[in-house]
């Protein structure tokens, strides 16, 4: 979710009217899927968090102002930037086809002051990080076009064949070195590092403009306050997204009074004028509006709402602005109708269909077992499902408990899904050594057990008793109480594992199937957990038990 800052005064100027901040806060929530995070009334700087990750034009003050002109009906319908043709060319070499095939570019002249420069860079960054997927899909470069000698060549060059001075550095280094040494190279190098040649932009003076999508050159690729002509360029792997970046930038600059000039891009097999207008249209049926929103609107109302949302409308054909590429289905357009109608004006309707509620069969069973254990006087515990191998196996003196491990854990503490619950009870007891005894605790919850290439989700329950006199008899009494209440005949067969004292740990069986473990915890395990009080425990696989008895 992108967050942007801008001057609220600038917003009001672009909008052409004043709105009290309190009102604005409600308006952005209601119309722009945005929330004011911060507002400094002294400097008029506002911080806005935007919810819609698929609508990048709203991530700029110009885009927001344009949209709100529609909300306030001061300007409606489709708006398009004007662009004149230039003699400039960008020649795309075949060598970028496999690396990063597309480029969109134009030139804009106007006054670049400090604030505008900040805004341009902010939008560039937000767009490339979010919509551009950390520059992989799209990256944007801005240059002082007067320093560039056209035509510009977009091509791929061997990492050790070319040197240039990247931004914030003072000497020429090889492209490969940029990836190694420059902070941006370290951050974004992964995007191109595996290719045999890296994409670059070079002008006719053989001056490198940029190592795409990493860093611009210190000479041409540095836009500064006072520059009067900027060269925009977006490259990427998705032609549509690259063009969208150019269209949003062009529209924003146009509305700031910049004069735009197109550039001809020569691909291997085609020639296109950039920026490229999508001229996208979609058909809308009045019935669809009612189906989705429940609103009974006239065609005139629909047209009006669409125009306020800045679409063009002619009969039932809706023209989509060139700075939008989020419309896949007519429902996307109808959502905008509903938003412009005002969610606060839409009356809610009750759900009238009769349906019967019910818990899952598994949870019904699980709850009946919990009820028995609560009746036995046990305190219920609820733990995170994530744990780690040291807890689940090592400290329990067992191996191969079928743990599902995480390949990218955030921390070692939570690096695996628990595969049984007894260790979790030991963890709880070890944290409560100074609390009153006896300690009788239980937990019911999900575990995951991996068997080869299969992972099983299971519901399980564990009971643990810690006190001076606890023994096998006591814990087996609990097992009997549970099984008798469920009407199940179970037996305990000796089973040796490191967790339990030899001869005092067993496998719980029902109908010959092992469904759990019971026993006195071995002193070795107790000392692993730094426990000084005897512990007995029993654990039952409830999924398996339910399967057997139902």
């Amino acid at each position, binding site marked *: 979710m992108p967050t942007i800052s801008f001057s609220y005064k600038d917003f009001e100027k672009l909008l052409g009217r004043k709105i009290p901040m309190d009102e604005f806060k409600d308006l952005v929530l209601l119309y722009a899927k945005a929330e004011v995070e911060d507002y400094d009334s002294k400097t008029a700087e506002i911080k806005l968090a935007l919810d819609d990750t698929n609508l990048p034009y709203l991530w700029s003050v110009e885009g927001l102002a344009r949209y709100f002109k529609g909300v306030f009906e001061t300007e409606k319908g489709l708006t398009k930037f004007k662009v004149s043709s230039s003699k400039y060319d960008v020649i795309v070499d075949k060598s970028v086809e496999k690396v990063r095939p597309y480029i969109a570019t134009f030139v804009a002249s106007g006054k670049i002051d400090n604030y505008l420069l900040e805004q341009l860079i902010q939008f560039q960054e937000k767009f490339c990080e979010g919509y551009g997927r950390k520059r992989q899909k799209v990256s944007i470069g801005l240059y002082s076009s007067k320093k560039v000698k056209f035509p510009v060549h977009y091509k791929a060059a061997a990492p050790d064949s070319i040197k240039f001075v990247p931004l914030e550095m003072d000497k020429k280094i090889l492209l490969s070195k940029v990836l190694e040494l420059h902070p941006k190279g370290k951050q974004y190098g992964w995007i191109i590092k595996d290719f045999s040649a890296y994409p670059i932009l070079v002008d006719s003076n053989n001056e490198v403009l940029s190592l795409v999508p990493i860093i611009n050159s210190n000479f041409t690729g540095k836009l500064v306050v006072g520059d009067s002509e900027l060269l925009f360029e977006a490259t990427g792997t998705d032609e549509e997204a690259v063009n969208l970046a150019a269209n949003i930038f062009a529209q924003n600059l146009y509305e700031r009074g910049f004069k735009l000039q197109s550039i001809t891009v020569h691909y291997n097999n085609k020639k296109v004028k950039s920026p490229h207008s999508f001229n996208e249209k979609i058909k809308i049926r009045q019935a669809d509006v009612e189906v989705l*929103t429940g609103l009974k609107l006239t065609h005139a109302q629909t047209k009006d709402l669409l125009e306020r949302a800045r679409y063009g409308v002619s009969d039932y054909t809706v023209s989509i602005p060139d700075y939008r590429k989020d419309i896949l*289905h007519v429902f996307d357009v109808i959502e905008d109708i509903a938003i412009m109608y005002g969610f606060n004006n839409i009356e809610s309707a009750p759900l009238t269909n009769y349906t019967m509620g019910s818990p899952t069969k598994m949870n019904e069973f699980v709850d009946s077992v919990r009820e028995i254990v609560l009746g036995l006087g046990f305190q219920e515990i609820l733990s995170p499902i994530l744990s780690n191998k040291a807890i689940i196996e090592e400290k329990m003196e067992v191996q191969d408990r079928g743990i599902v491990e995480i390949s990218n854990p955030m921390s070692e503490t939570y690096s695996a899904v628990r595969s049984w619950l007894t260790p979790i009870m030991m963890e709880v007891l070890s944290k409560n050594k100074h609390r009153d005894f006896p300690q009788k605790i239980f937990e019911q919850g999900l575990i995951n057990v991996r068997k080869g290439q299969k*992972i099983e989700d299971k519901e399980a329950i564990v009971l643990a008793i810690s006190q001076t006199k606890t023994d096998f008899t006591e814990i087996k009494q609990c097992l009997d109480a549970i099984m008798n209440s469920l009407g199940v005949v179970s037996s305990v067969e000796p089973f040796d594992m490191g967790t339990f004292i030899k001869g005092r740990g067993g496998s719980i069986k029902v109908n010959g199937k092992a469904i759990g473990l019971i026993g006195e915890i071995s002193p070795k395990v107790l000392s692993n957990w730094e426990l000084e009080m005897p512990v007995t425990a029993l654990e039952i696989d409830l999924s398996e038990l339910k399967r057997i008895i139902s």
Partner: protein
Amino acid sequence: MKDIIAELHRLERAVLPVLQKCSSVEDIVKQSGMEKVEVLRALHWLKGKGLCEVKEDLTEIVELDKNGQLYKEKGLPEKRFLEAVKSKIALTSLMKRTNLSREEVNVSIGILKRNNWITVEKGKELFFEITKEGKGKLSKGFDEQVLLEKSFPLKLNEVDDKTFASLKKRSILKTGVKKAITATLTNEGKKIAGSSELKEKVVDRLTPEMIKTGKWQNLRSYNLEAPVPKVFFGKKQPYRRFLEEVRAKLIALGFKERDGPIVESEFWNMDALFMPQFHSARDIHDAYYVKEPEYATDLPRELVRKVKAVHEKGMPGSKGWRYEFDEKKTARLVLRSQDTSISPRTLASKELEVPGKYFQISRCFRYDVIDATHNADFDQIGGFVVAEGLNLRHLFGLLRMFAKEFCGTDEIKVVPSYFPFTEPSVGLYAKHPVIGWIELAGAGIFRPEMTKPLGVDKPVIAWGIGLGRVAMFKLGIKDIRQLYSHDLKYLRNAKHAYD
């Protein structure tokens, strides 16, 4: 007086007469033959009834300090030192033989030289030799060692000041305080202690034998106000109890519960929801990936084909996402990052009922740093409603109902929102009577590109409610980690939360 006697406990009855002759607890214990704890308990009760006064005097005593206990067992360092220098010996071998620390050696040399029990020779290193006086000392023995052998604590006057001062400096002895408890009868106590009624045999506990024989007279009265020991009982975990209430409410509202696996393929977790594989929420660092096995082997092939087709080429009425769908990626196993992963499973299943209302309360996992507002796992509550003719107005109606049921309020704000799998998407803010405005729910109507491939052509309202803040408020906790608290004190004392 009779009433007071009637209420007296067996222990009180035993102690009262003894108090006529003795006052210190030690003496009472000796005289009565009772345990010390029993005497103390009886005195405490008698004091409460105004029958005796209890005085606690603190007297200073001498105790062993940390070195004291050690030297009591091993011997004083100077003694061990002297014993080791029977013949000329170098410092290093002496240290090896005696196991003394550098500091202990220094202290010992000081003492032994001052008393002229050893001589010290400086060469490449120090050499020591025992003197005649030293040999005499060895056979005579060390007074301090004898002192340490005594049974501690000692009274202050049992140790002379000079010895105490020097041993205290070496952390061998220290002063402590001893509590001496004495009790004396009050006037009323004296009367009762001498009363003959006190000697009458009273009975504490009613036994089956007494009931059978009818001999149950003389059951003494209890002090009903006396505190009793705590009992630990079978108790539900407070947060789970809260979730149970939510679940019961949803069932009462006509929702059917469903569940799904924790380890989920990207297909069900994301792709079946029409979230493009290039979506920013699908970066490697937004989900936990399973180490082994890496890929699901049980994906429904036909469904994968249909979902892939819609992602790549769309369908009538939709352009689709237009990219190359990666069939390997769709099988990649992750820990489910959202509970919506369960919805497509239900929608595609043969058991789906239309009209139908469904919900799940499920543990989900997101790649986040754990702090007071983020857990490693968290519970999501969500579901969907499917029926002919559902639209945005019904969605608003559903949200209004949730605000009422789970937040106790009619004051709501419904605003546009964004989820990749719903269109329109809606956010619900509700004004909780105490907490104020909270973000209570997210909802929307599943995109046709999502429901069609799953075989559903009716509108489906998807919803999720976030009750974390309401739960924390109800349970009176500030740190989200406490929802899964392992602290027995908290769990045993947690109040049952009601509306």
